[in-house]
């Protein structure tokens, strides 16, 4: 794992990954959007609103994926002190917050025609909202501690504590009542959704994932540069 601890090596690798992932994301996005908006037929129950699924569901998946990524990176940073793990965690937070926001907004927009209201305090919706707050808290903590090393450790502690909390919230809120769809793709006994819908969905999900990778590379390089800039500035001030 410490192979990529060398920042120069990482920068080189990121320089290769970023354009490829970006291009992949763009292509998949175009294909996915075409399928979702044009090819897929309207649902017999939900009509054309079903198309919202192709952005809503991948956003929701990414919202959860980003937090797991962030928590794992934080754990690596705290336990193995890997020098890039902090940066990976910090860089993924705004992306995750962005996707969580999108999951909330697209879900709300879908909810209005389907449930007749923009918002209900249903289990899944509530836990996504709280996930959004966790992202905000994480980013605010980074922002409010000036010293980079201290901020990294403090934020990592928070990320881990938050990670324990996420499943707890999910299960506790679950015992209320649920209006939201139960899982139909990520299930033990295989997806229960028509293949004509499944494929575009998977393509969109892959596009989002590629977008995440490309963006993560860009943001990690930015954070790495900012760290170097700070060090140089500090050295300059005192010399």
């Amino acid at each position, binding site marked *: 794992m410490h192979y990529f601890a060398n920042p120069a090596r990482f920068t080189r690798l990121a320089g290769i990954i970023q354009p490829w992932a970006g291009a992949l994301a763009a292509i998949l996005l175009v294909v996915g959007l075409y399928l979702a908006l044009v090819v897929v037929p*309207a649902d017999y129950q939900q009509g*054309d609103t079903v198309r919202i699924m192709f952005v809503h569901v991948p*956003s929701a998946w990414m919202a959860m994926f980003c937090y797991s990524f962030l928590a794992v990176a934080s754990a690596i940073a705290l336990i193995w002190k890997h020098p890039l793990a902090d940066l990976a965690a910090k860089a993924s937070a705004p992306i995750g917050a962005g996707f969580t926001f*999108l999951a909330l*907004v697209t879900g709300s*927009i879908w909810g209005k*025609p389907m449930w007749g209201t923009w918002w209900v305090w249903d289990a899944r919706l509530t836990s996504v909202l709280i996930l959004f707050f966790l992202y905000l808290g994480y980013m605010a903590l980074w922002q409010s501690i000036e010293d980079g090393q201290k901020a990294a450790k403090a934020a990592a502690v928070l990320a881990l504590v938050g990670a324990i909390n996420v499943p707890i919230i999910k299960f506790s809120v679950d015992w209320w009542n649920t209006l939201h769809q139960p899982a139909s793709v990520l299930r033990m006994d295989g997806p229960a959704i028509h293949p004509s819908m499944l494929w575009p969905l998977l393509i969109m999900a892959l596009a989002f994932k590629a*977008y995440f990778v490309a963006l993560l590379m860009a943001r990690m*390089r930015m954070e790495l540069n900012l760290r170097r800039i700070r060090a*140089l500035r500090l050295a300059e001030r005192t010399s």
Partner: protein
Amino acid sequence: MDGMGQFFAMGGYAFYVWPAFAIVLVVMALLWFASVRGWRKSEQTLAALRRNRRQRESDEA
């Protein structure tokens, strides 16, 4: 109603479907451009700082 109009009408749900897709694309684009711009700017600042430093070191030498 022609094909195009039908497509944009989204079976009467245009008011929901299009904003949903639009906001997703807008947020993703904004995040993308903000990140790439931040990264570019950081590269430039870093290069400028390093240049300064090299200059100063050669001045001192």
